[in-house]
């Protein structure tokens, strides 16, 4: 909203620099966004907060300035006129959203040039001068905040005004010469046959006042703010009027605004009022808000040391009726246009704002120890994040909203939550999996020649029932950067599995299992379901070529993992207790076997521990061989078994006994061949 400095000076004697005034307005909650020179005038562009519709006009702003600078102000005199008996033909449809409508018929006006002083004022605020009638309605709007509209009375079919909802399919050409289609959610002003204005938003072309207009019907009304806001949004059309109606105009200004405009019209256009109607469909509450408070309450709430005089003077300047009793009590009655003042804090805020927040001292709060326990789940998530970062993965943050298309791109039919009102197709769906997000980031990086990526996100996925905490990892390219090429190799299933296992282990969970799976979006045979307590909580594997192709990723080895963390974060970790490090030496024996490709290491481990008695301490996988020195359906595996006792030094003999048995049983049960 714009205000003019010269216009302000019509009400208050000002000798303040424009920058200083601008700063003072901003610091009183009336934020100045720009200060510009328009001819000899200075214009401030303000951002008025939605709770202050009373500031959306010059008079309202002059009241604020008077309070801020503590200076007296004058207001224009508005005539009181004798009531005219003849009524205009005006009806308001029941419950249509118009609270009050004043129509005044002024006959024999001379439409023409606008008086210079009015023209100067409205042009400073960026309005184009049209003719004296339109300019006067605009002037009054800017001065008092009451939107007005003048119709060419002779063009109103039947000489009638009906305030009603638009009919479906009804159309109107507005004064900006656009044809607009209406519907019953939109309030219109109509004559006998058609809409002649979109109520509170914009008038119609056909009934606008032109140089040939002889008789005008001046409208001053109160329209429901929500109705106007929705109409304005729906039509994509805002105006100075709709801006004010949306925020709520002052009910009483319907009358004073109308009178002020009529004063100006009669003064400069001549004409005679022949008919007038003031219809009130429903009254807006007109009870003044009384708030009583004490100086002590004000100061203890603000932490300030204000005097009674400080407070009363601010409130008086803002138009409150104030009385004090004793040394402490302040009784206030808020002006009617201040509907935002309802309780003690509202009055305190007014005082604080005008005194200036900068003039209220600062203190450090006394923060007591809290009985709120820290969030265990968050602490574990942080731990997980730290472990993954120390494992060399970079953390990413991606959008939780994705497009439906993205979801279809990896052949998965899952339940998902939709957004009812997405802004674009990219935000239709709450992601039920992180895969699309991860692939988008991978694809973005790979296309920018960032081929070696190791990324993770701890975020959320969303099902129909609830949102879940999820960890997701994506890897591609080479694992390590080493110019010596000591460990140069492309990442594989075991790299991503290792990251996942290590991280989950570090939050105290050792029970993860990996089972065969058939996820469509993962390469067959290079994937697993991640199991926790016999429930699948995620997957890990190589992303299928088909999916990669859809995402435009030309690099082959992309590995993905996703694990729902909720269950993992929930479990109460067992109390950790120290295990004595045994002083007795361990004996390590390797076993090298050729086994069928379908035999899993987990089977080997199981058998080993079954037969290992209490001296088998650990089974470590050491090597896998898939070369041509072995039968096609076989693979070579080497693993080492560590034997140790916490109570004595083991003899080679007793270890050999157990070890040979394990070795033999593995060969027997798994049809393995010794290598």
């Amino acid at each position: 909203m714009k205000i003019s400095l010269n216009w302000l000076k019509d009400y208050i004697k000002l000798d303040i620099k424009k920058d200083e005034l601008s700063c003072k307005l901003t610091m009183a909650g009336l934020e100045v966004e720009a200060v510009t020179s328009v001819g000899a005038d200075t214009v401030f562009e303000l951002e008025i907060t939605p709770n202050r519709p009373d500031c959306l006009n010059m008079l309202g702003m002059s009241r604020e300035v008077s309070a801020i600078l503590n200076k007296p102000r004058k207001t224009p005199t508005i005539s009181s006129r004798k009531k005219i008996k003849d009524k205009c033909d005006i009806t308001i449809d029941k419950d249509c959203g118009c609270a009050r409508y004043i129509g005044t018929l002024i006959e024999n006006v001379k439409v023409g040039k606008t008086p210079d002083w009015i023209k100067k004022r409205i042009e400073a605020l960026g309005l184009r001068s049209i003719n004296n009638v339109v300019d006067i309605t605009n002037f009054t709007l800017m001065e008092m905040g009451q939107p007005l509209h003048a119709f060419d009375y002779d063009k109103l079919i039947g000489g009638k005004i009906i305030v009603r909802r638009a009919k479906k399919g009804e159309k109107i050409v507005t004064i900006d010469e656009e044809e607009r289609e209406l519907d019953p959610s939109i309030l219109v002003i109509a004559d006998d046959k058609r809409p002649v204005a979109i109520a509170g938003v914009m008038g119609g072309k056909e009934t606008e006042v032109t140089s040939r207009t002889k008789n005008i019907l001046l409208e001053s009304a109160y329209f429901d703010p929500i109705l106007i806001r929705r109409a304005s949004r729906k039509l994509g059309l805002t105006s100075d009027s709709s801006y004010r109606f949306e925020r709520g105009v002052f009910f009483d200004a319907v009358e004073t605004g109308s009178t002020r405009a009529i004063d100006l019209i009669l003064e400069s256009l001549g004409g005679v009022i022949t008919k007038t109607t003031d219809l009130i469909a429903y009254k807006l509450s007109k009870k003044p808000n009384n708030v009583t408070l004490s100086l002590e309450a004000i100061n203890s709430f603000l932490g300030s040391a204000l005097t009674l005089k400080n407070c009363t003077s601010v409130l008086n300047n803002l138009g409150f009726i104030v009385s004090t009793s004793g040394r402490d009590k302040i009784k206030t009655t808020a002006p009617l246009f201040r509907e935002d003042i309802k309780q003690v804090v509202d009055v305190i805020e007014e005082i604080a704002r005008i005194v200036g927040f900068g003039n209220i001292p600062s203190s450090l709060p006394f923060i007591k120890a809290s009985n709120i326990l820290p969030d265990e789940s968050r602490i574990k998530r942080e731990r997980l994040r730290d472990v993954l970062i120390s494992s060399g993965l970079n953390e990413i943050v991606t959008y939780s909203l994705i497009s439906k298309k993205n979801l279809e791109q990896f052949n998965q039919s899952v339940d998902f939550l939709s957004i009812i009102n997405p802004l674009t197709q990219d935000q239709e769906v709450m992601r039920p999996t992180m895969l699309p997000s991860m692939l988008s980031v991978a694809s973005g990086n790979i296309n920018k020649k960032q081929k070696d990526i190791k990324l993770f996100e701890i975020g959320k996925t969303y099902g129909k029932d609830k949102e879940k905490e999820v960890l997701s990892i994506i890897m591609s390219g080479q694992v390590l950067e080493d110019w010596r090429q000591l460990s140069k190799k492309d990442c594989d299933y075991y790299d991503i599995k290792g990251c996942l296992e290590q991280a989950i282990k570090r939050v105290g969970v050792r029970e993860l299992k990996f089972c065969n799976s058939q996820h469509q979006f993962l390469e067959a045979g290079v994937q697993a379901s991640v199991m926790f307590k016999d429930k699948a909580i995620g997957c890990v594997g190589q992303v299928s070529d088909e999916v990669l192709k859809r995402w435009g990723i030309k690099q082959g080895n992309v590995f993905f993992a996703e694990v729902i963390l909720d269950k993992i974060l929930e479990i109460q970790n067992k109390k950790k207790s120290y295990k004595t490090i045994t002083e007795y030496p361990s004996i390590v024996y390797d076993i090298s076997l050729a086994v069928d490709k379908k035999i899993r290491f987990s089977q080997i481990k199981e058998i080993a521990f079954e037969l290992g008695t209490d001296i088998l301490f650990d089974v470590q996988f050491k090597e896998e061989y898939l070369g041509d020195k072995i039968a096609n359906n076989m693979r070579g595996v080497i693993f080492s078994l560590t034997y140790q006792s916490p109570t004595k030094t083991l003899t080679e003999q007793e270890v050999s006994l157990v070890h040979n048995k394990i070795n033999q049983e593995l060969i027997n049960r798994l049809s393995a061949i010794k290598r």
Partner: protein
Amino acid sequence: MNWNFDEIIQQIGQEQQLIASLSELESFRIKYLGKKGLIVDIYASLSSASNEDKPVIGKNVNILKNKLAGFIDGKKKELVDQKKKDSVSEIDITIPGVAPSVGHKHLLTQTIDEICELFKNLGFVIQEGPEIETEFNNFDALNIPSNHPSRDGFDTFYVDKKDPDNKKGNLLLRSQTSPVQIRVMQKYKPPLAVIVPGKVYRPDALDASHSFMFHQIEGLLVDKNVKFSDLKGLLEAFCKRLFGKNIKMRFRPHFFPFTEPSAEVDISWESGKKDWLEIMGCGMVHPNVFKAVGYKEGQYTGLAFGLGVERIAMLKYGIKDIRTFVENDNRFLKQF
């Protein structure tokens, strides 16, 4: 076997001249004094030598051995000394070391951590809440009237799931972290001091400074006699810790439905120049909010504040486009 000691000495003399490095010296040592070196060979040959040759060979080999040992010790010292004086080292010390692979926390996480840590040190406890919220928590309880524009589909995302508390309404994606205030106050009685990080959603078109998803951090302190001056002091302490001691700050009156008085906090880096940057919103908890969570009227006062994490990170690190954070370019991730 006959040993021509003159020839050997001559040969050794020539080789000695050529030694220029410790590794060459070591090869030389092995060749002559090593376990399979010449000296061992000569000693070994003594057993098969004739009785008259024995003392001669024995004497000569002892001399030779001592000479060699003396030479090696001397040369070694010389070479080490020389190496110490050398300005260019033997290995190329400028080739980058091979760094153990350690990843990077996302800058947004780092910023959230930094801010939460500051408040944790002041006695605040971190709390979180769900992203899918009820209208009650996101609006009603926060004193946002049912006809408020922010409830429109233009300003809040709604999901196709019914609100269990309001069968007519749908659940929504929280448009602010403030609903967690409500959850915390419903669960605990004051005194309470919580700090709430999280994602929030608003249907804003994507551009350099707007996103439909961003991160907020919300703070809430409720107790008897929390004052407006406490709000000022707390946030002054916070901003100085986050942005440096020399920043300027101002509290500019503003409007939020859930606080009163409400303010926006501006900071300015340079003294003198009046270039204010808005960094957060704050205020005293509105009595209607206390009412909504069932606190007795007038029993408590409180302060609350909220800030946009992306905005803070952009200001702090000079990032011009908010989309940078979610693009996740590896080169961006590795910078921080």
